[in-house]
């Protein structure tokens, strides 16, 4: 499982490297573009993911102790929190479309930083999109695990799927821990920050 996670680290690492590079070239544009992101929503989603990491850790804990009902409850809670995160993300994406902040022919950004801002939003959609895809896959994987847990398939001697999935879920949380400051908070100190247009 760790071998897979390390390949995932490299997968996301490529995006982060591209971010490092273009942020250097278009620093002012990146700050201005970051300034339009909604910090309260981003912070809310960060909190949602942290709570879901706790419920996932508690799910593994319950599996270790053979507490079937607790395991099922914590798995369901984790799924609900993951879905909540994705719901907020959908609202944010819709907001980008109404403000013409989606890279492409209809991209509009006030000021002289259009080129760099477009790159920022490309990275924003690429990075948060890949992250959201991981969340969707994660919720999908949780369904058979939840069903097996309901049937009482996991015991203190055998709970490897729960444990391995927990590692995956925590990894996805860690990616967001870095995405949140790099994308949302970069321009937080500029006047009018936090998504107020």
């Amino acid at each position: 499982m760790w071998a897979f996670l390390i390949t995932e680290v490299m997968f996301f690492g490529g995006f982060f490297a591209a971010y490092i590079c273009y942020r250097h070239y278009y620093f002012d544009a990146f700050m201005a573009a970051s300034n339009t992101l909604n910090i309260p929503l981003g912070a809310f989603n960060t909190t949602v993911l942290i709570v879901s990491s706790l419920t996932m850790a508690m799910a593994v804990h319950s599996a270790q102790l053979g507490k079937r009902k607790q395991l099922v409850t914590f798995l369901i809670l984790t799924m609900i929190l993951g879905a909540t995160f994705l719901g907020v993300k959908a609202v944010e994406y819709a907001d980008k479309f109404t403000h013409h902040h989606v890279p492409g022919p209809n991209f509009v950004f006030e000021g002289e930083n259009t080129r760099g801002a477009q790159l920022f939003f490309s990275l924003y959609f690429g990075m948060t999109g890949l992250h959201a895809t991981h969340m969707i896959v994660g919720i999908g994987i949780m369904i058979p695990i939840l069903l097996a847990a309901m049937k009482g398939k996991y015991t203190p001697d055998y709970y490897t799927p729960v444990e391995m999935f927990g590692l995956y879920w925590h990894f996805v949380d860690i990616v967001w821990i870095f995405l949140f400051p790099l994308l949302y908070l970069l321009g937080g100190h500029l006047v009018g920050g936090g998504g107020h247009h």
Partner: protein
Amino acid sequence: MSKHEETHDHVVSTKVYYGVFAFLLVMTALTVAVAKVDLGIFNTLVALTIAVMKASAVVFFFMHVRWASKLARLFVAAGFFWLLLLFVLVMMDYYNRSHLGM
């Protein structure tokens, strides 16, 4: 044989999980608060320091690396070291091109 394979069954006290959880929440509030203050180039430094602390807490406690075997820990460390290598080399290249007039 099966006994030896069960290296993963360290049961952690729930107190540890709740402690890490509280730490993560406090650090999130802190990073949002600090981001509103203009610290110049230090904004990113502070934000990344907090992010690394949060990520470490997740890796060591939620992901049980603190109680993992030495081999597993070496494996994880090697992965992150490789990532660091990627970032440092990218920065060494792109951040110094301006000196060459490129």
